[in-house]
Protein backbone atom coordinates (compact mmCIF):
# COMPACT_ATOMS: atom_id res chain seq x y z
CA UNK A 1 0.00 0.00 0.00
CA UNK A 2 1.44 3.34 -1.01
CA UNK A 3 -1.42 5.47 0.30
CA UNK A 4 -0.17 7.99 2.85
CA UNK A 5 3.50 7.14 2.31
CA UNK A 6 6.38 9.56 1.64
CA UNK A 7 8.92 9.31 -1.16
CA UNK A 8 12.24 10.67 0.08
CA UNK A 9 14.85 8.18 -1.15
CA UNK A 10 14.61 6.24 -4.44
CA UNK A 11 15.00 3.03 -2.43
CA UNK A 12 12.05 3.79 -0.10
CA UNK A 13 9.77 1.64 -2.25
CA UNK A 14 10.06 -2.08 -2.97
CA UNK A 15 10.36 -3.42 -6.51
CA UNK A 16 6.68 -4.44 -6.35
CA UNK A 17 5.64 -0.96 -5.26
CA UNK A 18 7.69 0.65 -8.02
CA UNK A 19 6.21 -1.74 -10.55
CA UNK A 20 2.71 -0.82 -9.39
CA UNK A 21 3.49 2.87 -10.02
CA UNK A 22 4.93 2.11 -13.45
CA UNK A 23 1.90 -0.05 -14.29
CA UNK A 24 -0.46 2.79 -13.42
CA UNK A 25 1.74 5.20 -15.43
CA UNK A 26 1.39 2.90 -18.44
CA UNK A 27 -2.39 3.04 -18.15
CA UNK A 28 -2.30 6.83 -17.91
CA UNK A 29 -0.07 7.05 -21.00
CA UNK A 30 -2.57 4.90 -22.89
CA UNK A 31 -5.65 6.84 -21.90
CA UNK A 32 -4.92 10.13 -20.09
CA UNK A 33 -8.54 11.37 -20.38
CA UNK A 34 -9.71 8.58 -18.13
CA UNK A 35 -7.69 10.09 -15.28
CA UNK A 36 -8.57 13.73 -15.88
CA UNK A 37 -10.70 13.84 -12.73
CA UNK A 38 -8.83 11.33 -10.57
CA UNK A 39 -7.71 14.09 -8.20
CA UNK A 40 -10.77 16.35 -8.30
CA UNK A 41 -10.96 18.31 -5.08
CA UNK A 42 -7.38 17.46 -4.07
CA UNK A 43 -4.76 20.09 -3.35
CA UNK A 44 -1.00 19.75 -3.82
CA UNK A 45 1.51 22.12 -2.19
CA UNK A 46 4.74 22.74 -4.10
CA UNK A 47 7.36 24.02 -1.66
CA UNK A 48 10.38 25.08 -3.70
CA UNK A 49 13.14 26.50 -1.51
CA UNK A 50 15.24 26.94 -4.65
CA UNK A 51 13.98 27.49 -8.16
CA UNK A 52 13.77 24.48 -10.46
CA UNK A 53 11.35 25.34 -13.18
CA UNK A 54 11.58 22.02 -14.97
CA UNK A 55 10.80 19.88 -11.93
CA UNK A 56 8.09 22.20 -10.63
CA UNK A 57 6.31 22.36 -14.00
CA UNK A 58 6.41 18.58 -14.24
CA UNK A 59 4.73 18.15 -10.84
CA UNK A 60 2.24 20.94 -11.42
CA UNK A 61 1.31 19.69 -14.89
CA UNK A 62 0.86 16.21 -13.42
CA UNK A 63 -1.53 17.43 -10.70
CA UNK A 64 -3.49 19.72 -13.04
CA UNK A 65 -3.93 16.90 -15.56
CA UNK A 66 -5.43 14.79 -12.77
CA UNK A 67 -7.98 17.51 -12.04
CA UNK A 68 -6.29 18.64 -8.82
CA UNK A 69 -5.24 22.11 -7.72
CA UNK A 70 -1.96 23.65 -6.58
CA UNK A 71 -0.69 26.09 -3.96
CA UNK A 72 2.90 26.87 -3.07
CA UNK A 73 5.98 28.97 -3.69
CA UNK A 74 8.70 28.72 -6.30
CA UNK A 75 11.42 30.47 -4.35
CA UNK A 76 11.64 31.08 -0.60
CA UNK A 77 11.98 34.90 -0.81
CA UNK A 78 8.30 35.39 -1.35
CA UNK A 79 7.05 33.33 1.58
CA UNK A 80 7.05 33.03 5.36
CA UNK A 81 10.18 30.95 4.85
CA UNK A 82 11.97 34.22 4.11
CA UNK A 83 11.12 35.26 7.68
CA UNK A 84 13.02 32.24 8.93
CA UNK A 85 10.25 29.71 9.47
CA UNK A 86 11.60 26.20 9.95
CA UNK A 87 10.88 23.34 7.56
CA UNK A 88 9.05 21.55 10.38
CA UNK A 89 6.72 24.48 11.06
CA UNK A 90 6.07 25.10 7.38
CA UNK A 91 5.05 21.51 6.70
CA UNK A 92 2.90 21.35 9.85
CA UNK A 93 0.96 24.38 8.61
CA UNK A 94 0.76 23.16 5.02
CA UNK A 95 -0.52 19.79 6.28
CA UNK A 96 -3.67 21.62 7.43
CA UNK A 97 -4.46 22.88 3.93
CA UNK A 98 -3.09 20.48 1.36
CA UNK A 99 -3.46 16.74 0.68
CA UNK A 100 0.09 16.16 -0.58
CA UNK A 101 3.34 18.16 -0.60
CA UNK A 102 6.28 18.31 -2.99
CA UNK A 103 9.51 19.77 -1.63
CA UNK A 104 12.70 20.96 -3.29
CA UNK A 105 15.41 22.26 -0.96
CA UNK A 106 19.09 23.17 -1.36
CA UNK A 107 19.99 21.40 1.91
CA UNK A 108 20.39 17.63 2.04
CA UNK A 109 17.82 15.89 4.20
CA UNK A 110 15.27 18.75 4.31
CA UNK A 111 12.42 16.69 2.75
CA UNK A 112 13.21 13.90 5.22
CA UNK A 113 12.71 16.35 8.10
CA UNK A 114 9.47 17.51 6.50
CA UNK A 115 8.23 13.92 6.29
CA UNK A 116 8.87 13.43 10.02
CA UNK A 117 6.62 16.38 10.93
CA UNK A 118 4.01 16.01 8.18
CA UNK A 119 0.45 14.71 8.31
CA UNK A 120 0.35 14.39 4.50
CA UNK A 121 2.58 12.53 2.00
CA UNK A 122 5.81 14.36 1.17
CA UNK A 123 7.63 13.87 -2.14
CA UNK A 124 11.30 14.81 -2.38
CA UNK A 125 11.74 16.85 -5.57
CA UNK A 126 15.50 17.11 -5.05
CA UNK A 127 17.51 17.97 -1.93
CA UNK A 128 20.80 19.50 -2.97
CA UNK A 129 23.02 16.91 -4.60
CA UNK A 130 21.52 14.22 -2.39
CA UNK A 131 18.43 12.45 -3.76
CA UNK A 132 15.99 13.00 -6.58
CA UNK A 133 13.70 9.95 -6.51
CA UNK A 134 11.20 11.12 -9.14
CA UNK A 135 14.09 11.44 -11.62
CA UNK A 136 14.79 7.76 -10.98
CA UNK A 137 11.12 6.86 -11.48
CA UNK A 138 11.21 8.84 -14.73
CA UNK A 139 14.27 6.91 -15.89
CA UNK A 140 12.64 3.58 -15.02
CA UNK A 141 9.40 4.40 -16.82
CA UNK A 142 11.33 5.58 -19.90
CA UNK A 143 13.40 2.42 -20.05
CA UNK A 144 10.44 0.12 -19.46
CA UNK A 145 8.23 1.92 -22.00
CA UNK A 146 10.83 1.70 -24.74
CA UNK A 147 12.45 -1.65 -23.93
CA UNK A 148 9.29 -3.32 -22.56
CA UNK A 149 11.36 -4.71 -19.68
CA UNK A 150 13.68 -3.68 -16.84
CA UNK A 151 15.67 -6.94 -17.03
CA UNK A 152 18.36 -8.41 -19.30
CA UNK A 153 19.68 -5.00 -20.34
CA UNK A 154 23.19 -3.69 -20.89
CA UNK A 155 23.19 -0.20 -19.44
CA UNK A 156 25.99 2.22 -20.24
CA UNK A 157 26.43 5.12 -17.83
CA UNK A 158 28.71 7.83 -19.05
CA UNK A 159 30.29 10.99 -17.64
CA UNK A 160 30.56 12.00 -14.01
CA UNK A 161 29.82 8.74 -12.20
CA UNK A 162 31.41 9.89 -8.95
CA UNK A 163 29.21 12.83 -7.97
CA UNK A 164 26.16 12.11 -10.14
CA UNK A 165 23.50 10.92 -7.72
CA UNK A 166 20.98 10.15 -10.46
CA UNK A 167 23.53 7.65 -11.76
CA UNK A 168 23.93 6.03 -8.33
CA UNK A 169 20.16 5.75 -7.87
CA UNK A 170 19.73 4.27 -11.32
CA UNK A 171 22.42 1.65 -10.65
CA UNK A 172 20.82 0.74 -7.31
CA UNK A 173 17.34 0.54 -8.83
CA UNK A 174 18.30 -1.41 -11.95
CA UNK A 175 20.37 -3.82 -9.81
CA UNK A 176 17.13 -5.00 -8.27
CA UNK A 177 15.97 -6.42 -11.60
CA UNK A 178 17.36 -9.62 -13.12
CA UNK A 179 20.39 -10.03 -15.29
CA UNK A 180 21.25 -6.39 -16.02
CA UNK A 181 24.83 -5.50 -16.94
CA UNK A 182 26.49 -2.16 -16.32
CA UNK A 183 29.12 -0.52 -18.48
CA UNK A 184 30.61 2.38 -16.53
CA UNK A 185 32.26 4.93 -18.78
CA UNK A 186 34.18 7.73 -17.08
CA UNK A 187 37.62 9.24 -16.59
CA UNK A 188 39.36 7.44 -13.77
CA UNK A 189 38.99 10.50 -11.54
CA UNK A 190 35.21 10.28 -11.84
CA UNK A 191 34.59 6.56 -11.41
CA UNK A 192 31.65 5.36 -9.30
CA UNK A 193 32.34 5.58 -5.56
CA UNK A 194 33.61 2.52 -3.71
CA UNK A 195 30.35 1.91 -1.90
CA UNK A 196 28.47 1.49 -5.20
CA UNK A 197 31.12 -0.88 -6.55
CA UNK A 198 31.43 -2.94 -3.36
CA UNK A 199 28.03 -2.78 -1.69
CA UNK A 200 25.81 -2.81 -4.76
CA UNK A 201 27.61 -4.34 -7.75
CA UNK A 202 30.07 -6.79 -6.19
CA UNK A 203 27.81 -7.76 -3.31
CA UNK A 204 24.98 -8.70 -5.67
CA UNK A 205 27.36 -10.34 -8.13
CA UNK A 206 26.36 -8.04 -10.93
CA UNK A 207 28.22 -8.01 -14.20
CA UNK A 208 29.98 -4.65 -14.77
CA UNK A 209 33.00 -3.20 -16.49
CA UNK A 210 34.71 0.17 -16.15
CA UNK A 211 36.16 1.85 -19.23
CA UNK A 212 37.39 5.31 -20.18
CA UNK A 213 36.00 5.74 -23.68
CA UNK A 214 32.52 5.49 -25.20
CA UNK A 215 33.87 4.20 -28.53
CA UNK A 216 35.21 1.04 -26.90
CA UNK A 217 31.80 -0.15 -25.76
CA UNK A 218 28.99 1.74 -27.47
CA UNK A 219 28.18 -1.17 -29.84
CA UNK A 220 27.30 -3.40 -26.85
CA UNK A 221 24.78 -1.09 -25.18
CA UNK A 222 20.99 -1.21 -24.97
CA UNK A 223 20.88 2.07 -23.09
CA UNK A 224 23.36 4.93 -22.97
CA UNK A 225 22.73 7.25 -20.02
CA UNK A 226 24.77 10.42 -20.44
CA UNK A 227 25.64 12.89 -17.68
CA UNK A 228 27.72 16.03 -17.72
CA UNK A 229 31.47 16.06 -17.08
CA UNK A 230 32.40 19.37 -15.53
CA UNK A 231 35.77 20.93 -16.15
CA UNK A 232 36.25 21.71 -12.45
CA UNK A 233 35.98 18.02 -11.54
CA UNK A 234 39.29 17.28 -13.26
CA UNK A 235 42.51 17.44 -11.32
CA UNK A 236 44.49 18.88 -14.20
CA UNK A 237 43.86 20.66 -17.46
CA UNK A 238 45.84 18.06 -19.44
CA UNK A 239 43.47 15.23 -18.49
CA UNK A 240 40.47 17.40 -19.25
CA UNK A 241 41.72 18.23 -22.74
CA UNK A 242 42.73 14.63 -23.39
CA UNK A 243 39.38 13.19 -22.34
CA UNK A 244 36.75 15.83 -22.95
CA UNK A 245 35.90 14.71 -26.49
CA UNK A 246 35.42 11.13 -25.32
CA UNK A 247 32.47 12.31 -23.28
CA UNK A 248 30.70 14.16 -26.06
CA UNK A 249 28.21 12.00 -27.87
CA UNK A 250 28.03 12.83 -31.59
CA UNK A 251 26.75 11.11 -34.73
CA UNK A 252 30.15 9.57 -35.43
CA UNK A 253 29.83 7.60 -32.19
CA UNK A 254 26.10 6.98 -32.70
CA UNK A 255 26.89 5.22 -36.01
CA UNK A 256 28.71 2.53 -34.02
CA UNK A 257 25.72 1.92 -31.71
CA UNK A 258 22.91 -0.62 -32.08
CA UNK A 259 19.82 0.45 -33.99
CA UNK A 260 17.66 0.02 -30.90
CA UNK A 261 19.99 1.59 -28.34
CA UNK A 262 18.38 4.53 -26.56
CA UNK A 263 20.16 7.68 -25.38
CA UNK A 264 19.01 9.16 -22.08
CA UNK A 265 20.09 12.24 -20.12
CA UNK A 266 18.62 13.75 -16.92
CA UNK A 267 18.83 17.28 -18.48
CA UNK A 268 19.77 20.06 -18.65
CA UNK A 269 22.51 19.23 -21.10
CA UNK A 270 25.44 21.53 -21.78
CA UNK A 271 27.60 20.13 -24.56
CA UNK A 272 27.89 16.43 -23.77
CA UNK A 273 25.36 15.48 -26.45
CA UNK A 274 25.89 17.20 -29.81
CA UNK A 275 22.76 18.86 -31.21
CA UNK A 276 23.03 16.72 -34.34
CA UNK A 277 22.03 13.71 -32.22
CA UNK A 278 18.66 15.27 -31.29
CA UNK A 279 16.99 14.23 -34.54
CA UNK A 280 18.19 10.61 -34.27
CA UNK A 281 15.22 8.35 -33.39
CA UNK A 282 17.35 6.83 -30.63
CA UNK A 283 17.52 10.15 -28.76
CA UNK A 284 15.06 9.84 -25.87
CA UNK A 285 16.10 12.67 -23.56
CA UNK A 286 13.26 14.99 -24.51
CA UNK A 287 10.69 12.19 -24.50
CA UNK A 288 11.95 11.40 -20.99
CA UNK A 289 10.38 14.68 -19.83
CA UNK A 290 6.97 13.44 -20.93
CA UNK A 291 7.42 10.14 -19.09
CA UNK A 292 8.45 12.24 -16.08
CA UNK A 293 5.04 13.87 -15.98
CA UNK A 294 3.17 10.59 -16.42
CA UNK A 295 5.11 8.85 -13.69
CA UNK A 296 4.47 11.78 -11.34
CA UNK A 297 0.74 11.52 -12.11
CA UNK A 298 0.86 7.84 -11.14
CA UNK A 299 2.88 8.59 -8.00
CA UNK A 300 0.50 11.32 -6.83
CA UNK A 301 -2.50 9.03 -7.36
CA UNK A 302 -0.84 6.18 -5.44
CA UNK A 303 0.20 8.34 -2.47
CA UNK A 304 -3.27 9.89 -2.29
CA UNK A 305 -4.86 6.46 -2.57
CA UNK A 306 -7.15 7.51 -5.40
CA UNK A 307 -5.94 4.79 -7.78
CA UNK A 308 -8.40 2.14 -6.56
CA UNK A 309 -11.43 4.03 -7.82
CA UNK A 310 -10.12 4.35 -11.38
Amino acid at each position, binding site marked *: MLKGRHLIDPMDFSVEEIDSILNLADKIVENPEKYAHACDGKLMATLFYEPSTRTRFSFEAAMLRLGGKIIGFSEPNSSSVAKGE*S*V*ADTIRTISCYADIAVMR*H*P*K*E*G*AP*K*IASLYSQIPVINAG*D*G*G*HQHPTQTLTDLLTIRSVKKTLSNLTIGLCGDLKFGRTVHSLIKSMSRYENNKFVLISPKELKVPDYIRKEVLEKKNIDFIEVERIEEVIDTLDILYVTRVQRERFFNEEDYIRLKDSYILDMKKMKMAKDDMIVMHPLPRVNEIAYEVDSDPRAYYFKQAKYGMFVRMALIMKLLGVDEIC
Partner: protein
Amino acid sequence: MLTINSIKKGIVIDHIKAGCGIKIFNYLGLDRADFRVALIMNVESQKLGRKDIIKIENVIDIDYTVLGLIDPNITIDIIEDEKIKEKIKLKLPEKVVDVIKCKNPRCITSIEKYIPNVFYLVDEVKGEYRCEYCDEVHTLEEAEV
Protein backbone atom coordinates in the same frame (compact mmCIF):
# COMPACT_ATOMS: atom_id res chain seq x y z
CA MET B 1 53.42 10.11 42.46
CA LEU B 2 49.97 11.26 43.35
CA THR B 3 48.12 8.51 45.17
CA ILE B 4 44.41 8.03 45.38
CA ASN B 5 43.02 5.43 47.74
CA SER B 6 41.36 2.42 46.23
CA ILE B 7 37.61 2.34 46.49
CA LYS B 8 35.37 -0.07 48.35
CA LYS B 9 32.33 -0.09 46.14
CA GLY B 10 31.95 1.81 42.90
CA ILE B 11 33.22 2.25 39.36
CA VAL B 12 36.65 2.82 37.85
CA ILE B 13 36.75 4.21 34.33
CA ASP B 14 40.24 3.54 33.05
CA HIS B 15 42.34 3.91 29.89
CA ILE B 16 40.68 7.17 28.95
CA LYS B 17 42.66 9.00 26.27
CA ALA B 18 44.59 11.80 28.03
CA GLY B 19 42.50 14.96 27.90
CA CYS B 20 39.17 13.18 27.47
CA GLY B 21 38.69 12.55 31.20
CA ILE B 22 37.15 15.93 31.80
CA LYS B 23 34.66 15.37 28.95
CA ILE B 24 33.45 12.16 30.54
CA PHE B 25 33.50 13.75 34.00
CA ASN B 26 31.19 16.48 32.71
CA TYR B 27 29.03 14.12 30.67
CA LEU B 28 28.36 12.01 33.79
CA GLY B 29 27.52 15.15 35.76
CA LEU B 30 30.17 14.32 38.33
CA ASP B 31 30.75 18.01 39.07
CA ARG B 32 27.50 17.84 41.03
CA ALA B 33 28.30 14.57 42.79
CA ASP B 34 27.75 14.34 46.56
CA PHE B 35 29.92 11.21 46.84
CA ARG B 36 33.68 10.75 46.49
CA VAL B 37 34.97 11.11 42.95
CA ALA B 38 38.50 11.40 41.61
CA LEU B 39 39.52 12.57 38.16
CA ILE B 40 43.16 11.73 37.63
CA MET B 41 44.81 13.18 34.58
CA ASN B 42 47.95 12.33 32.64
CA VAL B 43 48.78 9.10 34.40
CA GLU B 44 51.65 7.14 32.79
CA SER B 45 50.31 4.22 30.78
CA GLN B 46 52.11 1.46 28.93
CA LYS B 47 49.38 1.21 26.34
CA LEU B 48 48.58 4.86 25.77
CA GLY B 49 51.63 6.80 26.95
CA ARG B 50 49.39 8.95 29.08
CA LYS B 51 45.83 8.35 30.18
CA ASP B 52 43.09 9.71 32.40
CA ILE B 53 41.23 7.73 35.07
CA ILE B 54 37.97 8.43 36.89
CA LYS B 55 37.18 6.70 40.18
CA ILE B 56 33.66 6.91 41.54
CA GLU B 57 32.88 5.74 45.04
CA ASN B 58 29.22 5.05 44.46
CA VAL B 59 26.99 2.89 42.30
CA ILE B 60 25.54 5.09 39.58
CA ASP B 61 23.65 4.45 36.38
CA ILE B 62 25.87 5.08 33.38
CA ASP B 63 24.98 4.97 29.71
CA TYR B 64 28.03 2.97 28.66
CA THR B 65 27.25 3.28 24.96
CA VAL B 66 27.86 7.01 25.09
CA LEU B 67 31.21 6.42 26.81
CA GLY B 68 32.04 4.11 23.91
CA LEU B 69 31.36 6.95 21.50
CA ILE B 70 33.61 9.31 23.41
CA ASP B 71 36.41 6.75 23.42
CA PRO B 72 35.91 3.06 22.59
CA ASN B 73 39.21 2.08 24.26
CA ILE B 74 37.92 2.97 27.71
CA THR B 75 37.68 0.11 30.21
CA ILE B 76 35.18 0.01 33.03
CA ASP B 77 35.60 -1.95 36.23
CA ILE B 78 32.76 -2.43 38.68
CA ILE B 79 34.24 -2.63 42.19
CA GLU B 80 32.79 -4.42 45.17
CA ASP B 81 34.64 -5.11 48.43
CA GLU B 82 37.72 -3.46 46.91
CA LYS B 83 37.81 -6.10 44.18
CA ILE B 84 36.90 -5.99 40.52
CA LYS B 85 33.54 -7.69 40.32
CA GLU B 86 32.88 -7.09 36.64
CA LYS B 87 34.65 -5.65 33.62
CA ILE B 88 32.45 -4.00 31.03
CA LYS B 89 33.41 -4.07 27.38
CA LEU B 90 32.27 -1.04 25.48
CA LYS B 91 30.41 -1.45 22.24
CA LEU B 92 29.39 1.14 19.68
CA PRO B 93 25.61 1.64 19.64
CA GLU B 94 23.58 0.98 16.46
CA LYS B 95 21.76 4.29 16.74
CA VAL B 96 22.78 7.46 18.53
CA VAL B 97 20.65 10.51 19.14
CA ASP B 98 22.01 13.94 20.00
CA VAL B 99 25.50 12.82 20.91
CA ILE B 100 27.42 13.53 17.73
CA LYS B 101 26.81 16.28 15.20
CA CYS B 102 26.76 16.13 11.41
CA LYS B 103 29.73 17.96 9.88
CA ASN B 104 28.34 18.14 6.34
CA PRO B 105 27.83 21.86 5.61
CA ARG B 106 25.16 20.94 3.04
CA CYS B 107 23.13 19.03 5.65
CA ILE B 108 19.79 20.46 6.80
CA THR B 109 20.94 20.06 10.43
CA SER B 110 23.56 22.75 9.76
CA ILE B 111 20.85 25.43 9.51
CA GLU B 112 17.85 24.06 11.43
CA LYS B 113 19.02 23.55 14.97
CA TYR B 114 15.88 22.03 16.53
CA ILE B 115 16.38 18.76 14.63
CA PRO B 116 17.63 15.82 16.71
CA ASN B 117 21.02 14.62 15.41
CA VAL B 118 20.41 10.97 14.54
CA PHE B 119 23.17 8.62 13.36
CA TYR B 120 23.34 4.94 12.44
CA LEU B 121 26.42 2.74 12.81
CA VAL B 122 27.85 1.62 9.47
CA ASP B 123 31.30 0.29 10.43
CA GLU B 124 32.09 -0.77 13.96
CA VAL B 125 35.82 -1.27 13.34
CA LYS B 126 36.36 2.13 11.77
CA GLY B 127 33.79 3.75 14.09
CA GLU B 128 31.79 5.15 11.19
CA TYR B 129 28.32 6.61 11.52
CA ARG B 130 25.84 7.75 8.85
CA CYS B 131 23.70 10.86 9.28
CA GLU B 132 19.98 10.04 9.14
CA TYR B 133 19.23 13.09 6.97
CA CYS B 134 22.07 13.61 4.50
CA ASP B 135 23.56 10.06 4.59
CA GLU B 136 27.08 11.47 4.98
CA VAL B 137 29.34 8.98 6.76
CA HIS B 138 31.52 10.34 9.57
CA THR B 139 34.15 8.75 11.73
CA LEU B 140 33.67 9.49 15.41
CA GLU B 141 36.73 11.73 15.43
CA GLU B 142 35.28 13.90 12.66
CA ALA B 143 31.87 14.12 14.24
CA GLU B 144 33.15 15.47 17.58
CA VAL B 145 31.41 13.82 20.51
